[in-house]
């Protein structure tokens, strides 16, 4: 199942997991050690993050390491940048409207 990337960052625990594995790839056990929640709950969050393609699994011997997909995180920044541009365009249009109104008043 392909999920929405915003679902990944909507949860505070998942945001904490992202921050944690941004530093280095970690095993589910190592990740769980950082939280006061059950191993199962951590697995659930990791599954969602994997489905959002924000993290990927890497096998090293018998251990699975979770690693952050940096490019995917950039998608969010790109999206925010687009939103910023819309407002920039709008406000430039508003500048023109205001300057017309000012002239009319004089």
């Amino acid at each position, binding site marked *: 199942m392909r999920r929405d990337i915003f679902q990944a960052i909507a949860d*505070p625990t998942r945001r904490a997991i992202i921050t944690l594995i941004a530093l280095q790839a970690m095993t589910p056990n190592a990740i769980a050690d950082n939280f006061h929640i059950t191993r199962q709950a951590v697995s659930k969050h990791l599954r969602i993050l994997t489905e959002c393609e924000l993290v990927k699994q890497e096998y090293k011997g018998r251990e699975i390491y979770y690693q952050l997909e940096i490019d995917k995180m950039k998608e969010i920044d790109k999206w925010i940048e687009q939103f910023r541009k*819309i407002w920039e*365009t*709008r*406000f430039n*249009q*508003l500048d023109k409207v*205001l300057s017309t*109104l000012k002239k009319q008043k004089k």
Partner: protein
Amino acid sequence: MTNSLLFDFTVDKAKKTVYITREFDADLSLVWDAFTKADLLDQWLPPKPFTAKTKYQDFKVGGKRFYAMVSPEGQERWIIQEYTSITPKTNFKMYNAFADKDENPEPTGSEWDHTFSEQDGKTKVSIAIYNESLARMEKMIEMGFTEGFKASMNNLENLLATLSGK
């Protein structure tokens, strides 16, 4: 056109809120009108070549504005806004939701909070947009951005046409 006007844009993902601050080279009453009167909003809110048309507006607490963003192909995207709080020339809040042409709003929307202040003949507007879902915010952008992008492309085309004609 002066470009030294303040423009600040931040997104707090945890709070699902976008904060926008912009300064305008005009006095407070003019800027207030531009944000609260439908005929003026229709002039600047839709990124060109999109236009906006307001079916009705009742600017009072509990009142609504029902309007559409219209694409160059004539496709309409209806939006309904309900004013939840108004302090004249200082602040107003509204609830914004996409709707169908019969004024039926979609279940999730966004809360908008506008604050106005004037200093040295310039007016600062701070907007906070809280979204119930970030996915919805994404949709807002998908719509807006395509429009904005097309607009800048068109402007560029016009400019190039003018330049090459001379």
